[in-house]
């Protein structure tokens, strides 16, 4: 078993305490995340996803509860939260709106430079960030504002990867991108995760993307952690997810319906590739 990298104990976040607008955004959530795993987070708008991820990298202090990064409480007085933010990288929704430097290179170098790294190391990190996000070297001197939407998004993600975070949190990194752009960015992130043995936390409304990449899935509803289990186990509970305003991939729904209509021996599947393997093994007997 890998080591625990992040541990959350009884996290609570209450907004507007003592006012008529008091709202519990995150309600007593506890979990452990390991090194080298890919976590999916799903939940409808307002379920507490954004609040939770902002607490995980120390941007927001929980109202109560404790977060441990590698066993250390991140809210003790002497804890270095600046270093934590390099270790736990957070890519916000539509991160391209946060680009500001004159060139792609400078923008990606901003994080590593803030970490106080040498120029040599910064150059290396920029190169790495560009490699992981599939940005061509020709773009290095360009203004990020001249790039296409998809490229801008990659520059923004590269800037976080250049800090070599051990935990990478992404809030809807593929919103508004075409299918190929989505697949490329997610594959890039997967590659980073594997090479660096990092922990990735992917927040997404795309059940297909979560099914394709995550090994475990957290389901949030009304600030509560309703499920946290293997991806297959979570998506096998299709009806519950739909009741929560969520969904399961189309192919998963097809198999769940068939199961309910008398094909009890069908397993739960997450992708067309998995579906064909399962159908093949069920009907494979008559192959000549």
């Amino acid at each position, binding site marked *: 078993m890998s080591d625990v990298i992040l541990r959350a104990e009884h996290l609570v976040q209450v907004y507007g305490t003592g006012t008529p607008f008091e709202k519990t955004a995150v309600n007593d959530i506890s979990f452990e995340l390991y090194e080298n795993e890919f976590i999916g987070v799903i*939940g*409808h*708008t*307002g379920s507490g996803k954004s609040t939770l991820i902002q607490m995980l990298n120390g941007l927001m202090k929980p109202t109560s509860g404790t977060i441990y990064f590698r066993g250390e409480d991140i809210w003790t007085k002497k804890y270095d939260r600046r270093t934590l933010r390099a270790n736990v990288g957070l890519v916000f929704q539509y991160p391209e709106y946060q680009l500001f430097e004159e060139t792609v290179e400078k923008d990606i170098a901003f994080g590593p430079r803030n970490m106080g790294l040498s120029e040599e190391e910064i150059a290396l990190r920029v190169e790495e960030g560009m490699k992981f996000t599939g940005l061509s070297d020709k773009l290095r001197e360009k203004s990020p504002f001249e790039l*296409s*939407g*998809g490229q801008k998004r990659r520059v923004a993600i590269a800037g976080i990867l250049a800090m070599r975070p051990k935990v990478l949190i992404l809030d*809807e990194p593929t*919103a*508004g*991108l*075409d*299918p*190929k*752009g*989505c697949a490329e960015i997610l594959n890039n992130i997967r590659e980073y995760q594997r090479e660096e043995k990092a922990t990735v936390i992917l927040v997404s*409304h795309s*059940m*297909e993307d979560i099914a394709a990449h995550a090994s475990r899935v957290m389901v949030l509803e009304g600030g509560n952690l309703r499920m946290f289990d293997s991806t297959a186990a979570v998506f096998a509970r299709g009806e519950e997810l739909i009741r929560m*305003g*969520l*969904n399961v*991939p*189309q*192919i998963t*729904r*097809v198999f769940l*319906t*068939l199961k309910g*209509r008398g*094909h009890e021996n*069908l397993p739960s599947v997450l*992708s*067309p*590739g998995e*579906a*064909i393997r399962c*159908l*093949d093994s*069920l*009907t494979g007997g*008559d*192959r*000549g």
Partner: protein
Amino acid sequence: MSVIEAKNLVFRYSEDAEPVLKHVSLTVERGEFVAVLGHNGSGKSTLAKHLNGICIADEGTLKVCGIEVDESSDLAALRRKVGMVFQNPDNQIIASVVEEDVAFALENLGVPHDEMHRRVAEALEAVDMSRYAKHATYKLSGGQKQRIAIAGILAMRPDILVLDEPTAMLDPKGRAEVMEVLHKFHREGMTIVLITHFMDEAAQADRIVVMNDGEVLLDGEPHYVFQNAGLLWSVGLNVPQSTELMFLLREEGYKVPLAVLTEEECIAVLDDLLAGRIGREVL
């Protein structure tokens, strides 16, 4: 009757740039529900922006609801006929109270007070948001905000509703809510042009237009368009998972139909397959 007639549209954002639209021709009939697919930068949003005169073509002709769209057109009249809804609901909400937001355009148009109230009530009813009329807009969910944005457009009683990725920022429930509203308007006879990256949404339209590098690559009903899976994959698009499974089954020699889009269609085929009613070629 055609409500959109585009002939050989060519458009460049600046004089020395590559054209974003390269001789695009397209006809849309009144009451059609057309989905437009294409990779980022394929020209689909640019095409949509021509429909209400945000962009004016460099070459070619465009007629929308009987109005010739060019530099001399009455754009205000055109925009009353062609309502546009964009991706980000937060950028489209102006007022702090739902009914005031829906009334915003009507106030600008100088619609009389009683008439305005009637139209706002109708529009809210149409998007199933009547009970939120007095609510604060900032408290709504993404799907609700997007439906309010649609109501604001509807209140102007447009002939055509053009939506540019209206569900990109929404959760699954919000997406379903918006699609439900579009189906309802379509049944009532509205012409709808929906730009989307979601294949399952496109599959629900009457017709799909696929754009690639400024040209129309495919144009036809969803079953036809999605049978061209190889071509769609080659231009960075995708097919619904049900369709993809049929292609994978074919590769394994199963004699399944390829024209499968919806869950129900896929379930029917797999039911036959599991019952041994579908043959298989030994490959």
